[in-house]
């Protein structure tokens, strides 16, 4: 009969042995395991999304004909406005291309929009990420920027067979270079504070001392294009405060992010095109 002390220690000895063995498992094996366990869970997210879509469908089916007619009129009006803007956009793009050719400016890299439905949102104090319903099946690359109507969403962190994980700009540790609209001096945006029952926020560092921002008169932040991940001119958020730092050279401030970031349902992944493949994306400046 084994002594009782050994029986009591057995769980902890096993734990120590497993932990030690796990440290020596090759990285390739861990990567394979991670991908396998990730793909095992993907069908659940897809099925849940399908159920939600069905739920929305039946909710819409309860609308009366009069409500549908009114919605149709609003949609027609919006469509007419967008058609006009699309024509203006084409004219501007043509003008831009003509001026670039006159000045012999090398073409900017082009982007392809890949629209994707958000399957799952996972927001903790440590990370903020979403899972989207497009992956290797649509040639989504790791590191691709992701945007929505309100601006930057984040960048693709992981790509699965038919889903991808996107790290949001509200995630702590995410950093990108940004400008205040109308200024060309870059500052550093960093995701950070995400209080419970509130909207996500970030921090701005290296803010020039002459930039003044208050909650009543915030400054809009846009991507600078530095670093090569995000195209320039995409909205990031609003700088709502700017206080002089301890060094006296720069200010630090708080950035209010778009509250819709926490309710995302559709996003667009920007996939970089080869120079010969397409025109440069000209993001709409706010």
């Amino acid at each position, binding site marked *: 009969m084994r002594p009782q002390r050994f029986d009591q220690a057995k769980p902890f000895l096993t734990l120590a042995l497993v932990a030690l063995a796990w440290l020596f498992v090759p990285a390739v094996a861990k990567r394979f395991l991670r991908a396998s366990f990730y793909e095992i869970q993907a069908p659940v997210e897809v099925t849940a999304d399908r159920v939600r879509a069905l739920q929305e469908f039946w909710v819409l089916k309860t609308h009366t004909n009069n409500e549908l007619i009114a919605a149709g009129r609003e949609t027609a009006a919006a469509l007419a406005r967008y058609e006009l803007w699309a024509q203006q956009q084409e004219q501007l793009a043509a003008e831009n291309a003509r001026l670039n050719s006159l000045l012999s400016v090398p073409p900017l890299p082009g982007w392809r929009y890949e629209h994707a439905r958000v399957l799952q949102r996972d927001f903790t104090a440590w990370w903020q990420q979403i899972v989207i319903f497009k992956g290797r099946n649509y040639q989504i690359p790791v590191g691709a920027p992701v945007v929505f109507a309100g601006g930057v969403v984040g960048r693709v962190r992981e790509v699965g067979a038919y889903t991808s994980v996107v790290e949001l700009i509200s995630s702590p540790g995410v950093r990108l270079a940004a400008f205040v609209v109308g200024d060309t001096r870059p500052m550093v945006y960093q995701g950070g504070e995400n209080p*419970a029952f509130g909207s996500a926020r970030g921090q701005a560092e290296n803010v020039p001392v002459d930039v003044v921002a208050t909650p009543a008169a915030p400054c809009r932040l846009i991507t600078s294009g530095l670093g090569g991940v995000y195209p320039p001119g995409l909205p990031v958020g609003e700088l709502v405060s700017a206080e002089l730092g301890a060094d006296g050279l720069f200010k630090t401030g708080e950035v209010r992010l778009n509250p819709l970031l926490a309710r995302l349902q559709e996003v667009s992944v920007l996939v970089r095109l080869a120079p010969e493949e397409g025109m440069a994306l000209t993001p709409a400046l706010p």
Partner: protein
Amino acid sequence: MTRRRRQILALLLGNYLLIAVTSQVNHAFSPWQLRLSLGGLLVAPATLSVGFRAGATVAFLTGLLLDATAPVWFGTHALLLLAAHAVLYSQRSGLAREETVVAVVAALLANLGIWLALAFFLGASLSLPGSAAVRLLAELGCSQIVLALIGPWFFSLQVRLLTMAGAKLRPDEF
């Protein structure tokens, strides 16, 4: 298939279901920046109802499921759940395991332990640990309340799954 393997599969199926449901609830709660964490409930039923090796396998594999979708070092949740299993298993002979209240309290304590360990390991990645503490405490409070509410249902589900798999322990095996 051996009885132990059937136990592992049945318990893993239950845990997979709980992870799926929790992820959907977290999706719905995301506009409020709130996330439930029910790690203790993933460990306690296996620890209290099957042998050490089967329970350890369930805890480790369930942890890997959690690790696969989280941006953490692969193995963090697996080793934490295994540690919670080891601690709970070493104390289980002194517990009235067949009592649901005792099992739920054990799950609550395991959840608290896992959460504290996770906060300790991941806390360094937060840029503003002070303000984040309020959020973490709010999440912990909500998680514990939800765990206490759904704990009896989940323990019952796991027992039913074990019975269906023909792998439930007899009373004399406890």
